[in-house]
């Protein structure tokens, strides 16, 4: 029996802005000191009023444009009323019936996933609860001693938060993950959000139901999914769980479930309460937003390249294979560096050889970045300002390989040196005496030595075994510590052994 799986996502992303949504406090997700970036406004002191952050509005509109949404001409904020200690005002300023963006879509693989809406709101503070009654940390840090307690940090309260809701178009864990991943890339490309899931800058909630018939099944919500891998696993687990229940003739209960990281299962967090009444009403402290055509056009004209556009361009401009392209699309900073290197490389080539050189260099640069540099970074993020090799030096390095000035073996040594010291590749080659032996006499001397010591291989070669030549060349390369040009060595052998 097959089941129809229906999945919709609700994704929150903290926006990357200088200041908070409704006050001028710094928006710094990395601030470690609790209650440091706060002011009377985001602490909801009496008499304070919100003033909307225009940069945040712009970023949501930009996201909407990237996701093919209709942008509202008239939008407003509303109050969502509920009590919780992490919510200073006793209401969250959000958007209810006039979100900034509606009716968009995002293509993943070959499927279009509809986007219902994107709206702007403010984040809450962060609560920390002591683990257990009677078990608390020392009083040295100012915390209550020996009692259970809860602490609130309002640094996050009032940080602009974008909420995106998809249509129930997703049908598997893989699709859910792909959607979230692609959205993350887009948010990063647009400089809208750092969208780091582990830091909670991007939060994915899944609504999922399974049904035998065309009628939708009972909706289950899964929260607290802190990585893409977990999104996929939780969805797949939930499909299985619900399917089994239905197979056994049982009913799926409407509830909110969490993800247990160790057991890799979803578990009941809370059963459906009587529907929350948030008593939404228009925020009287903020005037209605009238978004004019030219304002939206201006945002559109300042739009950064989107991942899909980059995929297309990288294929066209650099002729890279799919995997390499995907590597660069997901490593935006490295891809920008890549483009700089390729462009610097062009400086080294003459007009006549430009076309051919470009094709070859594009691949060379890509290979060295994807394999060697990625290896040297050992899992660390590429940050250009901290990266010692300038694009210019990297381009020169590629040129040296391209023009056969260094062998691939030497190239690897030079690259390590450049990575560690930031040195100029030609200098490094010179200092280490790694340059190719140009002097034919010197080369012949080495060849003759090799011929003398390897009479067996010489005989084999002369009797027609081509492999033997490779062996001899290898010997020369070893003797010259890679500084000989293997092609040249080959040629010389053929000549000498005639």
């Amino acid at each position, binding site marked *: 029996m097959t089941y129809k799986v229906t999945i919709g996502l609700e994704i929150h992303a903290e926006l990357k802005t200088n200041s908070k949504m409704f006050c001028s406090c710094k928006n710094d997700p990395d601030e470690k000191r609790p209650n440091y970036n706060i002011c*009377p406004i985001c*602490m*909801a*002191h*009496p*008499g*304070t*009023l*919100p*003033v*909307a952050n225009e940069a945040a509005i712009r970023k949501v509109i930009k996201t909407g444009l990237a996701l093919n949404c209709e942008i509202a001409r008239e939008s407003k904020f509303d*109050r969502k*009323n509920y*009590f919780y*200690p992490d919510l*200073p*005002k*006793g*209401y969250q300023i959000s958007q209810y019936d006039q979100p900034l963006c509606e009716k968009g879509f995002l293509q993943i693989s070959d499927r279009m996933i509809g986007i219902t809406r994107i709206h702007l709101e403010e984040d809450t503070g962060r609560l920390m609860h002591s683990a257990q009654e009677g078990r608390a940390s020392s009083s040295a840090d100012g915390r209550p001693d020996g009692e259970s307690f809860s602490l*609130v940090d309002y640094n996050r309260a009032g940080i602009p938060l974008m909420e995106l809701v998809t249509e129930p178009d997703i049908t598997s864990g893989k699709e859910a993950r792909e959607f979230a991943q692609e959205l993350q890339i887009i948010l990063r490309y647009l400089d809208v959000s750092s969208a780091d899931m582990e830091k909670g800058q991007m939060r994915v909630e899944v609504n999922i139901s399974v049904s035998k018939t065309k009628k939708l099944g009972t909706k289950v919500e899964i929260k607290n999914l802190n990585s893409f891998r977990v999104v996929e696993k939780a969805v797949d687990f939930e499909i299985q769980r619900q399917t089994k229940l239905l197979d056994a003739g049982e009913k799926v209960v409407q509830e909110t479930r969490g993800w247990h990281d160790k057991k890799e299962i979803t578990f009941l967090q809370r059963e459906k309460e009587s529907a929350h*009444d948030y*008593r*939404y*009403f228009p925020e*009287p*402290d*903020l*005037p209605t937003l009238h978004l004019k055509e030219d304002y939206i056009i201006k945002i559109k004209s300042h739009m950064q390249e989107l991942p899909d556009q980059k995929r297309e361009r990288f294929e066209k401009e650099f002729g890279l294979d799919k995997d390499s392209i995907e590597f660069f699309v997901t490593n935006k900073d490295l891809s920008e560096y890549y483009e700089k290197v390729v462009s610097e490389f062009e400086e080294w080539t003459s007009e006549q050889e430009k076309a051919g050189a470009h094709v070859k260099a594009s691949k060379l640069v890509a290979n060295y970045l994807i394999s060697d540099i990625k290896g040297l970074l050992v899992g660390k993020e590429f940050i250009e300002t901290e990266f010692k090799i300038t694009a210019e030096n990297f381009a020169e390095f590629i040129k040296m390989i391209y023009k056969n000035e260094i062998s691939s073996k030497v190239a690897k040594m030079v690259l390590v040196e450049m990575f560690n010291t930031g040195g100029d590749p030609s200098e490094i080659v010179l200092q280490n005496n790694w340059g190719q032996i140009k002097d034919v006499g010197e080369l012949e001397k080495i060849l003759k030595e090799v011929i003398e010591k390897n009479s067996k291989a010489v005989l084999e070669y002369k009797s027609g075994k081509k492999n033997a030549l490779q062996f001899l060349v290898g010997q020369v390369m070893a003797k010259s510590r890679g500084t000989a040009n293997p092609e040249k060595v080959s040629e010389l052998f053929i000549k000498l052994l005639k």
Partner: protein
Amino acid sequence: MELQDFTIKQINKCLKEKKFSAKELANAYFDKIKNTDKDIDAYLNLTQDLALSQAEAVDQKISNGEEIPTLAGVPCSIKDNILVKDEKCSAASKMLENYIASYDSSVIKKLKEQGAIILGKTNLDEFAFGSSCENSAFKVTKNPHDLTCVAGGSSGGSAAAVASNQCCFALGTDTGCSVRTPASFCGVLGLKTTYGSVSRSGVIASASSLDQVGPLAKSVEDIEIIFNAISGKDILDATSVEYKYEKFIENNKPLTIGIPKEFFAEGINKDVEKIVKEAIFKIEDQGFKIQEISLPSSKYALACYYIIQTSEASSNLARFDGIRYGLSKQNENDLLDFYLSNRAGGFGAESKRRIMLGTYSLSSGYYDAYYKKAQEIRQLVKQDFKKAFEKVDLIMSPVVPFPAFKIGSKVNDPLSMYLADIYTVPVNLAGLPALSLPVGKTNGLPVGLQIIANHFEENKILSIASIIEKLV
């Protein structure tokens, strides 16, 4: 020194001529407060240290021969829902009994820049919820004209302080009546300003879409000076607008005055009606054209107001939870208990009533019938005024249907208390400016005339008010 004689300009002149120093003047007012406030109960808190240091700064400037702004050295009182940095600001609520403001409200910033001397914080109905000043958690302000009567509310302390010469002028706030009603009851002038003309930043919110700060004083000229000083766009209030007050220049065409028939209907006290009409006749004698108009939706305004006011208030008061500041009871069992005990202990009966009413109006299933309907009516009320101002320049009416009433006479009947606001709330719903101008007395109690103008036409109001001021 006869304090009642002083207008702002006279004080300014005397200070410049060194007839007395700002400090001497401030102390004279403090003496007056000391002698009279035990009977009147206008003040919740005196800000003596602040006032004297401000006065010294003004005196220093004068002795240095520097120019001083008009308001420099002029003593005023501030309603206790307007924040003055480092001073208590309670909104007359136990919830904020010991709350000390961490910043200056924008109006106070402006007054301080001008050098106005802040004598203290005046009493009000808790969170400005009321029309009599009896809903204060701390004291009932008495009417200086009859100590057994209410001062009116919610800015009762400010009005009584001005009326009893405990300050030269005062700031109040007006959400439905709160500057005009106490001004009318206490026989002083009170201006409800156009919504958006004065910043609300630092003013403890009652109902955000209705609240406005306004001055209370003893002359039209004073009102004009203060309004000029406190109005204008503020980056901390997104609902404030770019605005610069300019004096009204009369052209040849005399102003037309509309008299809404609905505002002189059943329920109005005969003496009040008579006094207000006499004032209007005097205006007519001066060559102004008087014309009857109709504001048909005004009969729904009161109901509409009490839905919108309570809805917004219920949300505005949600921040008082005892977590970050304010009344916070310890050792409760769980979070709900903590909230319940803080809010039950911190809010008075009227605040609780309004929170419940507003929460109800906003609840799903009731929203359409109450809040949404009220917003629709609000549009109709606005339309009425818009149409009226196509025909007339100003509208005149009583402020309250009756003069100040006995303390305690309406406290157990909230509905009849709400009826006091019947002529004033349409103005707030429409965001218009309106002045309460004293025009007579009945049985020793003052009666005010309400003059309403179109948005940002405070200058027209003040122009005609200065004429009436001389006639009565």
